[in-house]
């Protein structure tokens, strides 16, 4: 292309030092531009005789291996962060939040009584559980949907995750303290009616006999899978 212009005799080619300046000009223009620039827009601001295409090609080559690349989008030119460094443009911000009492109670029931459906959780708590409470627990990553109970309505069953064990420093779910330990720790007082029991917490990875796997839509709804 450069030769072509040469042949046309439109303008004399740039001297080497002019060439260097022109390259710097293209670089600065592209850097400062708020929008991608068309080659023609760039050319309009360069000294006559400058070969924009050659300059852009050179600049692209210079930046090919850098942290920033010169790319062509929709026929225009722009600098953009190298694709492999895109992670630098994401920053995690962690908000420390405390779980509400309702969420804590629900979490505890899921932990002790899993796999538990929402109705079962409500039965233990004696109050209805808002949708938000389970959503929060799913968001913590401590509770997951395990499957669906093979029962009328096919309710979703909930259980704890490995993250739950990690967070609470438990080796296995069976390490959750039982009735006597809770009494011993003073968390339950002595007036325990006969017949009152705590379930023995267990969280088999496999589904229970009365559990079906989750439907694909369940996963979508919970945002656990990208569309």
């Amino acid at each position, binding site marked *: 292309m450069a030769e072509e212009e040469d042949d046309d005799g439109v303008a004399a080619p740039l001297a080497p030092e002019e060439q260097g300046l022109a390259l710097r000009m293209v670089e600065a223009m592209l850097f400062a531009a708020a929008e991608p620039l068309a080659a023609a827009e760039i050319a309009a601001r360069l000294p006559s005789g400058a070969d924009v295409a050659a300059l852009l090609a050179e600049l692209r080559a210079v930046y090919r291996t850098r942290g920033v690349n010169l790319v062509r989008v929709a026929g225009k030119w722009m600098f953009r962060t190298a694709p492999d460094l895109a992670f630098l*443009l994401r920053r995690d911000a962690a908000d420390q939040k405390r779980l509400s*009492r309702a969420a804590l*109670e629900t979490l505890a029931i899921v932990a002790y009584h899993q796999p538990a459906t929402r109705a079962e959780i409500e039965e233990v708590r004696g109050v209805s559980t808002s949708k938000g409470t389970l959503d929060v627990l799913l968001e913590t990553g401590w509770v997951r949907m395990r499957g669906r109970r093979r029962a009328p309505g096919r309710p979703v069953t909930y259980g704890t995750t490995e993250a739950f064990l990690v967070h609470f420093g438990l080796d296995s779910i069976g390490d*959750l303290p039982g009735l006597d330990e809770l009494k011993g720790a003073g968390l339950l007082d002595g007036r325990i*009616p006969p017949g009152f029991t705590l379930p023995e917490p267990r969280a088999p990875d496999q589904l229970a006999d009365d559990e079906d796997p989750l439907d694909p839509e369940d996963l979508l709804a919970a945002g656990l899978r990208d569309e």
Partner: protein
Amino acid sequence: MADERGQTDLWETPARADATPAERALIVDVDGFEGPLDLLLALARTQKVDLARISILALAEQYLVFIEELRRLRLELAADYLVMAAWLAYLKSRLLLPEPEKGEEPSGEEMAAALAFRLRRLEAMRDAAARLVNRDRLGREVFSRGAPEPVELVRRSAYAATLYDLLTAYAAQRQRQMVSVVHVRRRQVWSLAEAREILTRMIGRMAEWTPMEVFLSPYLARDEIRTTVLASAFSASLELVREGKLELRQEEAFAPLELRDRIRPVPAAGEGGDG
């Protein structure tokens, strides 16, 4: 280009003062000056010497002449200019007259030096301002990235809870639940009315002595209400005996209670015999 024009605008006044050193040019008015110190500085520049070596006496003279000229032209002057004129007139007299004995008052020389200091300082600040604005300024001469790539903030909630929180919550709610269980299991009582109703249904069907437990049997099957059923039925039967509807007997202590109709049905033929 617009910027350059702007730049001249900003610095127009001193430029004009420099470009037209003739005092006459200044005499037009004081509109272009920012107070008496600015005017003094402009006048000082007409002396074309380093401010450090300026003649304060000559400067005071210039200022007073200038003000006098304005007064002659009957131009209105801000009070600041007049106060300065009065002060300079005083300074001039102090500089011209022999210094009195050393007193509390600063000498004329000291006052002149202080004025020179202020003029120098004002000029220095003007120069500094000029140097500042003539720097390569971001957004004017140098530019930052036109299309910065924003860092996407991924907000993630980190929940805090301890095992203790968890166990406390669990224990607390199970404890609450125990209390409610006790309420549900309140002792069941067979009321007298219930017993009487059952027994009344039997009246007229018990021609022979029949153990009470026979017709109570459907209710006695449940252990938890057996006692209350028996007690209420016995009470009710006593009532019905008193009312003359039943007869009650017991062969010995703890033997079964037996019931029979007090009014025995007469054979069909003798119907209505008793009335």
